[in-house]
Structures are given as C-alpha cells and as structure tokens.
C-alpha cells in the first residue's frame, strides 16, 4: 500500500514538474512581479499602486502586448503581498524572483518596504521600478537595480512651501510633525528644510510614533498659534490629524500634508473639513503632458482610470502606470524577449538609465548620479489644494489651475 502511494506521489510530482518546465519553455509573455502592500496598515496606498499597475497591464494587453521587433508579447502580473511589513516584502520579492522567475519587478507603495526589497532585487540582479516610494534614502543608497517614477519628497516637498511664501502675508511660523516611518519622516524633514530656507520660524518639530493620538500634542501646539501646520504621514494619520484639529477647534492659516491628500478617501471621509488642505504632487488630471506610449495625455489617463475603477486617479496611481511604461520603453529599446538572461537584465538597467520619454504622466528621465540616483527627475513639483471637493494645482504659477485659497477658512464657519 505504502509503495503504491509513493508511486502515485512520484507520478504526480513528475507531471507537475513537466508542466512547469513546459510552461517555462513556451513562455511568450513577460512575467512581471509586483510586490506591494495589499493588506495591513498601508493597504490603501498599496491598492492604489495596484490600480496603476493593473491599468498599465490591461492597456498593454488590449493593444496586443509590447511590440519587440515586430512581435507582440503580452504582460502578466504576479502579485505578492508585502503586508505593509518590510520583512514580509523582502521575502515576497525573493519568492517572486526564485520561484515565479519574474522578468522584472514593479515595486512597493511605501518607502520602508522598498528599502527592504531593493537589496533582494540587487542580490538576484532583477530590475525594479517603484511607482510610488518617495523617501530620499532609497536613492542615496544607490541601488543599481532600483528605479522610481515619483521624485523623492525632498524634490517635491519644497513646492508648497514656496507657494505659501509667495502669499501675502506669508506664514511666519510653523509647527512641523511627522509619523515615525521612512516616508513620513522624510516628508517632515523636507518640509522643515524648505520652511527654514523660506525663513519661516519653526516653533516645533516632532516625529511621533504611528497610531499615536495627537490631540494632547495639538492642544499644546494650539497655544503657540502657528500660521502653518505641516504634517508628514500616511492616509489614515492625515484624516486623524484633521479630525483632531477640528475637535480642538484650531484653524491654522495653512495646513500642509503630502501623500494621502490626493487620495479620494481623504475628501470622502472628511467632507468640508478636507477643503483648502494643501499638498505636494507631481501629477493631476489637468497637467499638460504629451504621451507617446499608451495614453496621449493626463486627461485621457484620468478618463481610463475613472472608467476602470470608478474613482479618480492620483499621482501615485499615475506614477505606477508610468513605471510600467518605463519598462516597456526600455524593453523595446534593447529588444529583450521574455525569460531574460542576467546579461539582458543588465542591459535593461542601462536602457532605463538612458530613457528620456514623454508620457501621459510627464517626462520620465532617471538621474544617473548624485543624491537622486535612479529617481525620476524629469517632473515639475506642484502645489495642490483641495477646492470644492477636487484636487487642483495651485502652484507654481505657470501650472496653476486655480488660485490658492489662503488663509484657511475657520472650521466652524464651513
């Protein structure tokens, strides 16, 4: 009996192996690994990147695939959940590379997970582009195989402070807070540096643990009466901060945040309290861009995104779709076919370093040296503000969709 079971198991195993080997040989599509936060604290942002990656794959496949020397290859996305945990992200990436044998990787939403995944892609020499992570730390590490379409926050974060310093009267004092994670901390630091450069006096600068109730701290801040409150954090924390300010009834002249403000959930859950909150971005549906690959401009991408997901696209989703486009452009350039060798992957990195392509998202050009190494520096940072339930660009002046509303309207008069 035992030997019969053993034989049966052997037969099953060999059949499975044979099928796997067969699939490997006959592969006529690109296996794209995606490591992102599909569950856990950062699931909101993770799923926004998923929308961006999905939309890219859907559009590529609808057009028949990526055209490599006259032959079209479809793309298939293989997801691995990073669970909002850097260690889980690293092992997810390792699994995608060693077991799924993906050709390249579309990267995580958060900077923390990206920093954990990058050494893995480095080890196996697999190119990765993140369509979202914004911490400057990723780029100062100079990972050879890691790229990013969204510029680092020290590149974008200065824009809203500059817009504010052009207001009359400009804010004179600021309180800057950030949550203790890679991205949020970097955001708070970027705001601080920009505020100092703009001669705004910083009354308080604190990095606080995630999940912390900020009301007592804000009660203390209220006594300082700062003109500007700037906060680095993820979506849920931003909502809590606005609610806390609302509860203690303190309205600063300007309230500045970064990622999360552009997410539809921010406006939906806060309603009128979301109005006039400022943020930094590199893309809105109204930016003037001319795309050569897939979508001709920002507006057409916005329409496609709305149709696919019934919710407006933000810059992270757009950046994620653009990450796919960057790979597409580089693959076409070197004429790589699925099942790439190590040598071809190296060529892919070289090609990525050389691309300079106009897309619906804006210009994609990765820096090849300096503090922004492999980050996209082809973009113009924008100041955005929530006006009438919509995200609009209010600065710099030449990109303005509407004039900035300043100072903020008191909570109780809304």
């Amino acid at each position, binding site marked *: 009996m035992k030997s019969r079971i053993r034989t049966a198991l052997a037969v099953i195993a060999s059949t499975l192996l044979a099928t796997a080997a067969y699939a490997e040989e006959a592969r006529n599509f690109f296996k794209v690994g995606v490591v992102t936060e599909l569950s856990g604290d950062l699931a909101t942002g*993770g799923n926004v990147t998923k929308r961006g990656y999905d939309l890219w794959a859907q559009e590529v496949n609808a057009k028949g695939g990526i055209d490599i020397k006259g032959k079209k290859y479809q793309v298939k996305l293989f997801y691995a959940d990073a669970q909002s945990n850097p260690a889980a992200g690293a092992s997810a990436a390792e699994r995608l590379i060693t077991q799924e044998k993906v050709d390249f990787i579309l990267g995580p939403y958060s900077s923390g997970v990206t920093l954990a995944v990058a050494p893995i892609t480095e080890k196996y020499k697999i190119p990765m582009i993140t369509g979202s992570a914004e911490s400057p730390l990723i780029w100062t590490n100079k990972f050879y195989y890691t790229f990013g379409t969204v510029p680092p926050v020290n590149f974008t974060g200065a824009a809203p402070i500059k817009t504010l310093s052009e207001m009359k009267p400009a804010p004179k004092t600021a309180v800057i807070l950030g949550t203790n994670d890679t991205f949020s901390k970097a955001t708070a630091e970027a705001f601080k540096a920009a505020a100092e450069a703009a001669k705004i006096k910083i009354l308080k600068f*604190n990095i606080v643990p995630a999940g912390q109730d900020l009301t007592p701290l804000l009660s203390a801040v209220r006594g300082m009466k700062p003109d500007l409150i700037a906060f680095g954090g993820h979506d849920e924390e931003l909502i809590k901060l606005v609610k806390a300010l609302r509860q203690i009834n303190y309205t600063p002249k300007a309230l500045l945040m970064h990622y999360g403000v552009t997410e539809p959930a921010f406006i939906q859950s806060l309603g009128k309290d979301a109005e006039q909150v400022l943020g930094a971005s590199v893309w809105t549906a109204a930016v003037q861009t001319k795309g050569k690959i897939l979508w001709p401009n920002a507006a057409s991408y916005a329409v496609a995104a709305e149709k696919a997901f019934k919710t407006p696209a933000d810059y992270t989703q757009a950046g994620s779709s653009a990450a796919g486009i960057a790979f597409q452009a580089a693959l076409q350039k070197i004429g790589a076919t699925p099942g790439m060798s190590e040598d071809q992957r190296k060529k892919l990195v070289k090609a990525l370093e050389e691309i300079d392509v106009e897309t619906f998202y804006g210009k994609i050009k990765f820096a090849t040296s300096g503090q922004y190494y492999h980050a996209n520096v082809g973009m113009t940072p924008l100041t955005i503000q929530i006006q009438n339930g919509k995200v609009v660009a209010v600065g710099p002046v030449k990109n303005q969709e509407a004039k900035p509303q300043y100072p903020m309207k008191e909570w109780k008069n809304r």
Partner: protein
Amino acid sequence: MELLPQALIDGILLGGIYITIAVAFSLTYGVMHVIDFAVGEWIMFGAFAGYYLNKLTGLDPFILLPAVFLIFALVGYLVQPVIHRVMSGNRGNPLLMGLVFTFALALMFQGVALTVFGFYTNSIPSTFSEGSILIEKLGLSMTIPTIRLAGLCYALGITAMLHYLLKKTTFGLGVRALAQHKDAAGLMGVNGKRTGAYVYAIYVGISAMTGVLIGCIFSVSAQMGAQYTIFAFFVVVLAGMGYLAGVPWAALLLGMVQSIFLIYFDPGHTLLAVFAILYTILLISPKGLFGRGV
C-alpha cells in the same frame, strides 16, 4: 506650566477611550479566561456597522449605539459556544487554545473586512465631533472636545452599568461565582455555558459600540483593529488580569502618561514611556496596579 491643566484634561479624556476599549475585555477574561485577541476586530466591525448604519439612516452615531449593541451581542452569543468548545473538553492548555483560536479569528476577520469593506479609511460624522468647549479663565486656556467628553461619559456609564450588573443582580452573582471557581459555581446551580455566552455577548456588544465611538473620534478602516487590541491588552495587564475595578484607573493612568509625555517630553518616545511604566509596575507588582489580578 500653563499647559498642565490641558495635559491633565487630555489625559483623562484619552483614558476614557481606553476604558471603553478594555473594560469588557477584562470581564471576558475574568469569567471565561479567554484572552480575546479579536477585541480590536470586534471594535472594527462595530465601527463599520456604525458607519453604514449612519449612512443608511442619517441618524447620529450616538443614537445608533443601542442598535449596534443588540446586533453584536447576538453575534457574540452565537460565537461563544465555538470558543467554549475549543477551550473545554479533554484538551491540554485551554488558555493557549483560546489564545490561538481568537488570534486566528482576528486574522480571518481582518481579511474578511479588507475584502468586504475595501481598503479606504472612513470616518463617522457626528454632531458632537464639530464642537469643543473653550475655557479661558485665570490666564489658562483649555479646550475640551465635546466628542471626547461624550466618549468619557459613555465610558463611565458603561463601567457603572457593568458594576451594577455584577454586584447587584443575581446574574452578576452567577458571573462572579463562575469567575471564582467554575466547578463550584456549577454545583451551586450556575449554568456555566449559558452565563459564559451572555458575558461574551455583552463583551462583543460593548466592543462594537466602542468601535462606533472610535470611528467618530479617530477613523474607521479594515486594518484599525490591531492597535486597539494592543491597548486593551496593556490596560488589562496593568489593571491586573481579570480585575474589572482596576480597569478605569489603569486606563486613566495610561492616558495621563501619554498626554503628559506628549506635551512635556519627547513625543517620539511616548510609547516607550508607556512600556517602561508598564514594565516597572509589573516588576514591582506582577498582579497589576492593585495586586488583584489573576
């Protein structure tokens, strides 16, 4: 120094929130000896129930509290026999079984919530969340957010009600007997199974109502549960496992520590301070603040 009254008030209000999270959790442990790791998830489900009921009916979440309690008490009543089954019979280490079971329940609930409710963060609007009471006298300036004041009243109300239930009713007598000695209570005619189910029902109902409150003060999302489980655990350990009367004091102490640390010291190390105090107290008195825990 002018910030001290504000710090104290904020600490009390924050403590109020912790009371609501921990009080029923402590009761279940005292009676059923279940460390329910799904407490945060019951809070999360309650918050979503409040969110959707508010959307559907347009009523203020505080009016919806009794409805949420009834729905979730029923759910708790139906779930308890499963936990009872896992923890009874001829099984080694029932405490561990309960722990593992509720931990799995929590993970499952998180997955279900993420699939059903989506990944967005929401908020429950309430008339209370709009205002605050401003006191400016003797050169001091204090704000008391009405929603948090309402939360504190709710916490004290729930504690008083539980106290009455346990100390003044026959049902409460049975519950206390069960907590003291399961077998002896059974011999005296207390139906352990049914009483356990009632207690669990009350616990789930209260946790769900707390969820609605948290949804008003903070936010609602599928992944919100874990942090509240940790705080419930903190408070209950500090109060002494299963010692209900210690919960309000432990909760207020934690709230106060956080508030004072946030204002006077480095906000980056608030949680470290909380841990340090918890550790020190447990080192001196391993059975909690009052030495009355299990």
